[in-house]
């Protein structure tokens, strides 16, 4: 009797301890997590006080690290091995979890940590061939010993950091999700690079386009989805050199080309189509100090830990500073003592889909190309799932690329397979490009370094102390016939393939244009005069033209002016369309609140400032209007359609008001544009009234209504930054949307004496949620201000007296 009581209680206690040591559902292992000696409490005292010292025997020579007041590490090493070793070590010190998490996400291994919830995501990443692409990337990089050494040193540094960790030092996310950091490998660098490439070229509408085309025909399709809208201002307008090229090969469209039917529904989650950026460079002739100035802000999903990690990398032969991506060596967007550069996404379509004709639907062993049987190359992927049995997924590789959608992914009932041709799958060595870019001293070196950059295709804005400004649209662009790759292509015909690439010399670039500035904001790269086809998924129409307005009209620019432009909340869309809408309203039908809204909108200055109210009404009105006009396509139960963009919709409304699409389908009455505009005005005002009822304690202000959030990458509640008090929206230079926007802002003035740099990130340098540097820059980000950052000269590192204002100096011996 006694022994059974004792036994039961002992068993119960043992069970409790085991339970407290295990992760159950969404809860962390409580005992392990809350233990003040090893659990999350230890993360509170790490990091921000920077007690830890770098202990390593891997350095070839001595090195020095200055941490400035923003926790930006300025690394000085005597040789490149030590430099990239330390970059890896220090990045891991602040961002280890994020680096590993992104590498895991890219290789489709999240289910090992998150269980069944992420299986579909993992399957998708594997089927997209991201791992294969990363492997090729590393293979190609291996061919250049010097560059591969950079990758190796960086990985060595990350591993040196990981190897000296004890459980109590793990980033808190490992403790919460109860897993361990694993060894860092060069492949992970490739994976993260391809992950970034995916986020920039991942949005394609081939399936949605195809569905629309089948529904409404080519003529209507071209009307609703024009390649370039009248009034558009491309990055480069009619460069005279284009006419001089005499060796242009324009591929011919096969005469009997016919797009095939696409996947109907279940096109899986895609990156945000607004992933993009602004960058511009102003020549000395247009600035107050006579120095060129560069500005850049890449728009991505806002997340914590911040996407970017700022650092300075210095050796006796090189000195570069700027934004790096944790997990990738070198500086992606930044400046050295002679040049500065910044990037935006070029948004060219480099991702096409081919419908596969199986020779036999039961076994899926071969497929047909030009009437001949071709075998699949099979790749069996094991997806390990936490606390469940692994699942196997067979990926079939074709001559086009991997089959992403087939019976076992996307839609069980479908008989077809859809293979992906994506330029990210081709071998390339972007890291070489970035490495050389970091060292470039003038435009010639810079543009030479770009030649190795295949993708993601980017617009590089450039300034130098020689007072050069330039814009290079860089990528390895497939040379396509008109409409190639806009729709799903026939994978049973080999003549559907890409006919080579646009030669590097024929990529678009401008150097020192007369107007005194270059700018890009993801708009069309060139006008009709450019002899190659430049279809992109979605080209910007407003931000770029607003930039042109501001840069064209201004003179004597200062850094402060640039910072103001980065935070410009003016909506060109509102300017061009609001009064068109208001003029259609029948004022006799207004109730008092609608009258108020009408008055508010008529007097509005088109700014999406955080304290404005008018943008709320306009946005809702336009949302209702778009939903009403495109109800044919909106949320169709069995098909995914592409929706025409706002700019096209409003262009058509203003210029071609008789279009039958404008008629709402549910009603029997034929509706005119005025009817729709009036109806949606009433419904949108009601909608906002309802919001007011539901959120009584909130003021009706744009920033509150928009509710920008910066979420933690692992979606841990409490680790987000909510209620970001910022204006702006999509189509506005300050492109801060609900969970998406400028992931850093940077302005660099290039003086004869080196760069003067200003930057801010919506977050901070540290990835530790317990550190004040986790989100300390958000406040300034919201206000639209920038931090002045120090770019130290080599001599400063060597001299005995360190600069002032540092929070930590680490001196490392050999």
């Amino acid at each position, binding site marked *: 009797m006694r022994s059974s009581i004792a036994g039961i209680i002992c068993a119960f206690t043992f069970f409790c301890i085991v339970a407290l040591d295990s992760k159950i559902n969404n809860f962390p292992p409580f005992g392990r997590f809350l233990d*003040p*000696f090893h659990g999350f409490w230890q993360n509170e005292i790490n990091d921000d006080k920077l007690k830890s010292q770098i202990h390593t025997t891997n350095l070839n020579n001595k090195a020095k690290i200055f941490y400035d007041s923003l926790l930006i590490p300025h690394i000085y090493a005597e040789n490149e091995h030590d430099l990239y070793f330390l970059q890896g070590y220090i990045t891991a010190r602040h961002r280890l979890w994020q680096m590993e998490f992104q590498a895991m996400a890219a290789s489709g291994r999240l289910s090992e940590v998150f269980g069944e919830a992420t299986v579909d995501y993992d399957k998708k990443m594997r089927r997209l061939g991201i791992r294969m692409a990363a492997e090729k990337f590393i293979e190609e990089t291996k061919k250049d010993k010097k560059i591969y050494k950079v990758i190796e040193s960086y990985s060595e540094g990350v591993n040196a950091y990981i190897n000296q960790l004890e459980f109590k030092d793990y980033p808190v996310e490992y403790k919460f999700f109860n897993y361990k950091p694993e060894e860092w490998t060069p492949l992970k660098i490739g994976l993260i690079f391809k992950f970034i490439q995916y986020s920039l070229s991942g949005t394609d509408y081939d399936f949605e386009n195809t569905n629309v085309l089948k529904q409404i025909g080519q003529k209507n399709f071209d009307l609703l989805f024009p390649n370039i809208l009248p009034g558009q201002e491309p990055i480069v307008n009619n460069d005279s050199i284009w006419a001089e090229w005499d060796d242009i090969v324009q591929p011919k469209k096969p005469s009997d080309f016919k797009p095939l039917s696409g996947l109907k529904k279940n096109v899986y989650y895609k990156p945000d189509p607004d992933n993009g950026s602004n960058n511009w460079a102003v020549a000395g002739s247009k600035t107050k100090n006579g120095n060129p100035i560069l500005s850049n802000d890449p728009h991505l999903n806002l997340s914590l830990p911040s996407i970017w990690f700022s650092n300075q990398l210095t050796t006796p032969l090189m000195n570069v500073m700027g934004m790096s991506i944790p997990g990738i060596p070198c500086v992606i967007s930044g400046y050295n003592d002679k040049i500065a550069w910044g990037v935006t996404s070029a948004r060219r379509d480099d991702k096409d889909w081919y419908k596969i004709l199986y020779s036999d639907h039961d076994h899926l062993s071969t497929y047909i190309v030009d009437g001949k049987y071709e075998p699949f190359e099979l790749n069996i992927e094991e997806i390990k799932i936490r606390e469940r049995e692994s699942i196997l997924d067979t990926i079939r590789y074709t001559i086009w690329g991997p089959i992403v959608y087939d019976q076992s992914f996307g839609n069980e009932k479908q008989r077809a397979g859809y293979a992906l041709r994506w330029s990210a799958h081709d071998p390339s060595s972007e890291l070489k490009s970035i490495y050389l870019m970091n060292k470039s001293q003038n435009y010639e070196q810079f543009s030479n370094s770009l030649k190795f950059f295949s993708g993601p295709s980017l617009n590089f804005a450039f300034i130098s102390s020689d007072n050069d400004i330039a814009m290079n649209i860089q990528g390895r662009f497939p040379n396509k016939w008109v409409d190639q790759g806009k729709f799903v292509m026939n994978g049973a015909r080999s003549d559907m393939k890409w006919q080579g690439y646009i030669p590097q010399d024929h990529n678009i670039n401008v150097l020192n244009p007369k107007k005194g500035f270059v700018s890009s904001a993801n708009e069309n790269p060139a006008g009709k005069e450019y002899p190659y086809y430049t279809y992109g998924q979605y080209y910007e129409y407003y931000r770029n033209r607003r930039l042109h307005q501001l840069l064209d009209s201004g003179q004597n620019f200062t850094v402060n002016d640039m910072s103001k432009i980065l935070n410009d909340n003016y909506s060109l869309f509102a300017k061009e369309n609001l009064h068109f809408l208001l003029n259609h309203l029948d004022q006799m039908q207004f109730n008092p609140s609608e009258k108020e809204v009408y008055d508010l909108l008529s007097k509005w200055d088109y700014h999406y400032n955080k304290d404005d109210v008018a943008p709320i009404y306009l946005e809702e009105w336009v949302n209702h209007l778009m939903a009403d006009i495109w109800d044919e396509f909106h949320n169709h139960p069995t098909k995914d359609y592409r929706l025409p963009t706002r700019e096209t919709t409003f262009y058509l409304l203003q210029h071609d008001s008789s279009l039958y699409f404008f008629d709402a389908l549910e009603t029997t009455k034929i509706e005119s544009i005025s009817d729709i505009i009036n109806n949606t005005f009433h419904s949108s005002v009601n909608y906002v009234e309802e919001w007011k009822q539901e959120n009584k304690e909130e003021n009706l202000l744009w920033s509150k209504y928009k509710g920008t959030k910066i979420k933690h990458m692992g979606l841990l509640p409490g680790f987000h930054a909510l209620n970001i008090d910022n204006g702006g929206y999509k189509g506005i230079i300050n492109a801060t949307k609900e969970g998406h926007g400028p992931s850093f802002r940077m302005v660099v003035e290039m003086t004869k004496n080196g760069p003067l740099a200003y930057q801010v990130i919506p977050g901070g340098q540290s990835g530790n949620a317990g550190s004040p540097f986790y989100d300390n820059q958000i406040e300034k980000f919201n206000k639209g201000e920038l931090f002045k950052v120090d770019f130290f000269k080599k001599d400063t590192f060597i001299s005995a007296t360190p600069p002032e204002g540092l929070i930590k100096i680490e001196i490392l011996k050999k």
Partner: protein
Amino acid sequence: MINKNEIIYGATLFFICALLQFYFPWWIIAIPCFTFGILNEKSNFFKTFCIAFIALGLLWGLYAAFIQLYTGSELSRRISTMFQVPSNDFIGLITAIIGGLTGGLSALCGALVKWSLVDLKPVKVQNSDSDDVDSDY
């Protein structure tokens, strides 16, 4: 009434556990507490449980509180949002309770094991075979 000995036991547990925790994972605290349960002469279960509960609760709670004071407790504020409790003090409290319960239960187990061992010996001697047969049929 609190006995002087009990304070000494508690304090000893507190320090031994603190020392061990620097070298071993969190569950190591179960071992000294269990041992204490066995060694504790007066087998008052409630008291044994309480001594270990208070000692470990204090150890975890005080260390957590110390960290909070020392750092400005940014992280525990975030964790309190995560666990949907009103403030970061609750996280310290939960920490103390989890530590206390682990210690208390382990000590209780020790005491129970000793109690059952004491019990079993005479039972084996007294009970003859016939008793077993009776109860079985």
